[in-house]
């Protein structure tokens, strides 16, 4: 099929999402399937076709999702219902909406080197402690089935 001339093409909007938790380690394909599943589950096939969603960028904890202009609200609402990607608990938090990817790139903070990891024993189990910020601390412990993660704060760690 012959492509549409630029004047007849639909305008696009780009939505920047932050992926939580920090170490989700997702790629664009996994994100695409998760968001597309959320859209088709909430709005049906017709809604999904109307949105014409695509994941255009996936860098660190941030992703940019493209949709048709005027349907950003639908995209954000559907993305809020994403709670699990590829078997791990994840959420997408909307940060900004723009007409260009460049504008959204400016909203993405530069990735910082990871802070040194240490070990801690909590309720008889050994955990790898990773400091996320001044206050946030994540505890990673290996379980029988999968990795157990606890989300604590620096004050909690001082109490332990």
């Amino acid at each position, binding site marked *: 099929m012959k492509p549409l001339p630029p004047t007849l093409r639909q305008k696009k909007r780009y939505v920047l999402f932050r992926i*939580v*938790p920090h170490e989700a380690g997702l790629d664009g394909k996994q994100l695409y399937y998760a968001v597309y599943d959320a859209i088709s*589950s*909430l709005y049906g096939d017709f809604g999904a076709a109307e949105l014409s969603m695509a994941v255009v960028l996936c860098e660190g904890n941030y992703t940019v999702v493209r949709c048709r202009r005027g349907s950003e*609200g639908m995209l*954000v*609402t559907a993305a*809020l*219902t994403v*709670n699990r990607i590829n078997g791990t*608990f*994840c*959420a997408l*938090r*909307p940060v900004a909406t723009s007409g260009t990817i460049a504008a959204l790139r400016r909203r993405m903070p530069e990735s910082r080197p990871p802070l040194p990891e240490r070990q801690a024993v909590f309720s008889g189990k050994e955990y790898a402690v990773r400091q996320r910020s001044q*206050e*946030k601390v994540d505890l990673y412990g290996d379980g029988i089935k999968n990795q*157990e*993660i*606890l*989300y*604590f*704060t620096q*004050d*909690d760690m001082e109490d332990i």
Partner: protein
Amino acid sequence: MAYSDACVFPYPSGDTSVRRFALEAKYMGFDSIVCADGNGGVSGEFYGVRVYRALHLRQKNQNDLVKAMRKCRFKPDIILVSAGDATFNRATLSTGGVGILRGIHDAGSRAFDDVCGIKAAENSVAVDIDLSAIICRRGNPRQKALESFAEILKFQRKFGFPVSISSGASSYIHMRSVEEIVSLCGIFGMEENEVKAALGSVDAIINSPPIIEVIDEAIDEVIPE
């Protein structure tokens, strides 16, 4: 207005500590959170967010509910009760001390009627909208939950009882910010001002003045014969 998440499940029920919940709630625009189950006696204010200690009861009949309320070892700021059938809900809404009726979307299509609506309005008991039913469910269960929330909204507009909104989160990942909640509640027709009023209802319930107020000065007055 002070916004509040009406129910979160911290560690050990969930994987996030009370303090971490409070910290995330601060970034998400909340002023307070209600921690149900196993909050380990932690309550107070963390990072500028007020943490309310709640007792979450899942009893099936009225007698067991009253017994459980009496047996409680700590003094909760608010009592949450899981909804049951219509008879149980009517009795629960008339029971003194109950603050929020939760999980109405799981209780069946006839569990909440106009009598429940009137009783909830008379006793200022909030009916909870649990967003985890929209976020974590897919297909038929989510459709039923959305239908149930839309019905609660209709009753609320008619009878004017308080409505609370909770994320039902056992992890901070499942929490949603105030703007995100406005967007999610728009699916079943809740308007922005209604959502914001609902987010402020928990503080209004907890800090409501007592029904009977004792005025000390009146005791000294001599009653004429």
